[in-house]
């Protein structure tokens, strides 16, 4: 059923009894052309593009819990394409362009809200690094502006300009950046993929791979039985190493917990996304009114989906350092997501050494903003067996070759990316 | 030819204002004191030389170096555990070059580093000392967990600090000694002072003896 104000009004007359499932709930078939492991944003977007862009409709998405139960529903909903290195720049801009047409593509309001992101800088060195990045963006046709302290004061008058430990000197602004409603992205892709013929199978955990004599993957063992597959794509950020291990692979990835926080709902206070350059704090405000904020990783390997106090304190200290008027606003909820931290802070979208098995992993904190592009390029790889140009550098062997894409320059130390 | 005077300066030269701070009135819940003119020598045992180091320490200080986190008072010096097989020899600064003297005594068996200017010694005491400390020190400083003579290497404002419990003051109050990095001292003094203001603070200066 098409969603619109008219269908809503019509449904209202019948007390909304007419609405049907947003996505079908089929029993798994014995075989699919493509099986996607992972019913998060990336897996569902991949299935959506396979069906609608590449005409491959005999597709299943297997989710061990409920769709969107992983990082898709645990992030701070920021979308942006303000990256500085070849490989990232083009890819994230492709994603931004897909965000900009998502509601119309999916006939689902994912609340893509381009209210802008400002990365504050507090030193000349930081300004220069932002200038380099901003110029890279402009050279790649992406919007970017370098603001000085006065311009920042105009945009964000409520920040701390009086007694800050690290005074605000300016910021890098991308106006087209913003936020989107994370759960809606999952549901929107699920609904559109389902309408395109994709089977979305929840509560179906993959427990192993089926391999033929040549070692090629020909299916998966699941908690709901064996499912045959022409090709299998992994989109299980947070659990990549665990699933890869079932195929005997070791990845350049560590799982780390990243905490996020939301405050009680308050009337509009913050226009867009703000990141603090001298501490670990970034914040935006949801349409419901909650301040959604976060900071750095806890720093240790974890699969626990919860963090500890030092980071909570560190994040709030950062918040109070730049916006001390939120002192009396209360933190409502705290949660943790498991980041697929790659060794250079950049994702991996590639074939694997195992025939028939394809990898989409290593998203670090970039996962949510990448959702549409990740789906498109992974679908392309699965359909064509060759990378789309935008993802050509996200290769698995880049570490062996020394072709890392290291935005932060931290090297093989995942918890520093 | 110009004359040069080499006045020494304390890192708390600005921050420390002797007298009463905090709650109005004369109430003193916490005493804060910078101890100046100190000599600190970091002694780190060389590989496999624990026995010789202990022997040398016995010879110089008349006591074994602490094997566990504690501070022991020896001849002319207090030996403060500062990590596995290492300690800080703390004494009052004197005319003779303590560092040279100790370097000789430990030659070949331990590596020494003069830290007399690398750290600043702050002594904190008073009836409310533990409440104040609880705000910037994560250790359990209860009598049972941290008796007189106990020592620890820990953090304050995310920077390292050596803390050890001294003898109780004449008026029966607990005292703790804190060694903090010189460059941080000014900043940390304010952190410590702020945490004690609600109890009333008496700040003063002392010289190591």
């Amino acid at each position, binding site marked *: 059923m098409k969603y619109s104000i008219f269908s809503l009004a019509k449904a209202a007359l019948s007390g909304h009894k007419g609405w049907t499932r947003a996505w079908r709930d089929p029993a798994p078939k014995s075989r699919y052309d493509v099986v996607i492991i992972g019913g998060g944003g990336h897996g569902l977007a991949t299935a959506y593009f396979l069906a609608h862009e590449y005409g491959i409709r005999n597709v299943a998405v297997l989710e061990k819990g409920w769709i969107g139960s992983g990082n898709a529903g645990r992030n701070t909903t920021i979308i942006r394409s303000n990256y500085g290195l070849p490989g990232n720049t083009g890819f994230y801009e492709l994603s931004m362009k897909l965000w900009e047409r998502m509601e119309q593509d999916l006939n689902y309001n994912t609340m893509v809200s381009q209210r802008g992101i400002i990365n504050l800088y507090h030193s000349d060195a930081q300004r220069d690094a932002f200038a380099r990045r901003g110029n890279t963006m402009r050279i790649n046709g992406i919007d970017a502006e370098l603001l000085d302290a006065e311009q920042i004061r105009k945009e964000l008058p409520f920040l701390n300009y009086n007694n800050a430990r690290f005074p605000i000197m300016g910021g890098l602004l991308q106006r087209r950046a913003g936020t989107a409603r994370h759960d809606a992205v999952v549901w929107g892709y699920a609904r559109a993929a389902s309408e395109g013929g994709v089977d979305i199978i929840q509560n179906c955990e993959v427990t192993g791979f089926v391999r033929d004599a040549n070692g090629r993957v020909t299916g998966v063992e699941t908690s709901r039985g064996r499912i045959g597959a022409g090709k299998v794509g992994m989109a299980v950020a947070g659990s990549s190493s665990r699933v890869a291990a079932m195929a005997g692979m070791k*990845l350049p990835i560590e799982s780390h917990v990243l905490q996020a926080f939301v405050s009680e709902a308050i009337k509009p206070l913050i226009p867009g996304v703000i990141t603090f350059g001298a501490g670990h704090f970034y914040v935006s405000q949801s349409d419901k009114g909650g301040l959604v904020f976060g900071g750095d990783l806890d720093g240790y390997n974890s699969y*626990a989906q919860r963090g500890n106090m030092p980071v909570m304190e560190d994040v709030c200290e950062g918040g109070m350092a730049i916006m001390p008027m939120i002192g009396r606003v209360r933190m409502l909820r705290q949660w943790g997501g498991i980041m697929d931290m790659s060794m250079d802070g950049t994702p991996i979208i590639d074939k694997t050494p195992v025939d028939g098995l394809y990898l989409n992993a290593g998203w670090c904190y970039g996962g949510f903003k990448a959702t549409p592009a990740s789906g498109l390029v992974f679908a392309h790889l699965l359909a064509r067996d060759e990378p789309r140009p935008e993802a050509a550098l996200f290769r698995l062997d880049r570490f062996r070759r020394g072709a890392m894409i290291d935005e932060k320059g931290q090297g093989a130390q995942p918890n520093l990316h | 030819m110009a004359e040069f005077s080499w006045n020494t300066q304390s890192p708390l030269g600005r921050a420390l204002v002797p007298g009463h701070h905090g709650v109005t009135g004369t109430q003193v819940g916490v005493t804060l004191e910078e101890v100046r003119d100190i000599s600190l020598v970091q002694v780190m045992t060389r590989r496999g030389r624990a026995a010789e180091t202990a022997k040398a320490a016995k010879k110089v200080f008349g006591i074994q170096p602490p094997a566990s986190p504690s501070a022991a008072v020896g001849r002319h010096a207090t030996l403060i555990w500062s990590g596995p097989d290492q300690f800080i020899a703390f004494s009052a600064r004197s005319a003779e070059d303590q560092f040279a003297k100790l370097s000789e005594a430990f030659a070949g068996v331990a590596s020494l580093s003069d830290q007399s200017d690398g750290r600043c010694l702050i002594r904190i005491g008073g009836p409310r000392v533990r409440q104040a400390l609880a705000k910037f020190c994560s250790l359990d400083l209860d009598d049972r967990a941290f008796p007189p003579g106990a020592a620890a290497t820990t953090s304050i404002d995310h920077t390292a600090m050596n803390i050890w419990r001294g003898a109780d003051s004449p008026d029966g109050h607990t005292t703790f000694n804190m060694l903090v990095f010189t460059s941080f001292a000014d900043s940390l003094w304010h952190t410590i002072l702020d945490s004690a203001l609600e109890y009333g603070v008496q700040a003063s200066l002392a010289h190591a003896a």
Partner: protein
Amino acid sequence: MRIACPFCGERENGEFTYLGDASPKRPNFAVDGGESPERAEDAFYDYVYLRDNLAGVMREYWYHGGGCRSWLVAERNTVTHEFISVTAAPGAGAALAARAGE
């Protein structure tokens, strides 16, 4: 989170820095007597980049930088965050130690 430093006792995790998996061992730069750089690169690639990334008990390096400055090897469950054991790195203190892992 609380970490029991074998030298200092139990401390809050703010005093520690995490490095990562303690299982990979640094190869010799001349694994093959320097014959083929390829093989040395393979060995180091494995050491520097590839991780088991266990969901469960793993051995890992922690640095007690906010305390006694010792490097520690902990066994910790990455699912429950529970520490099973914490021991000192071979070269902590003045102990005469063989090369790590040997």
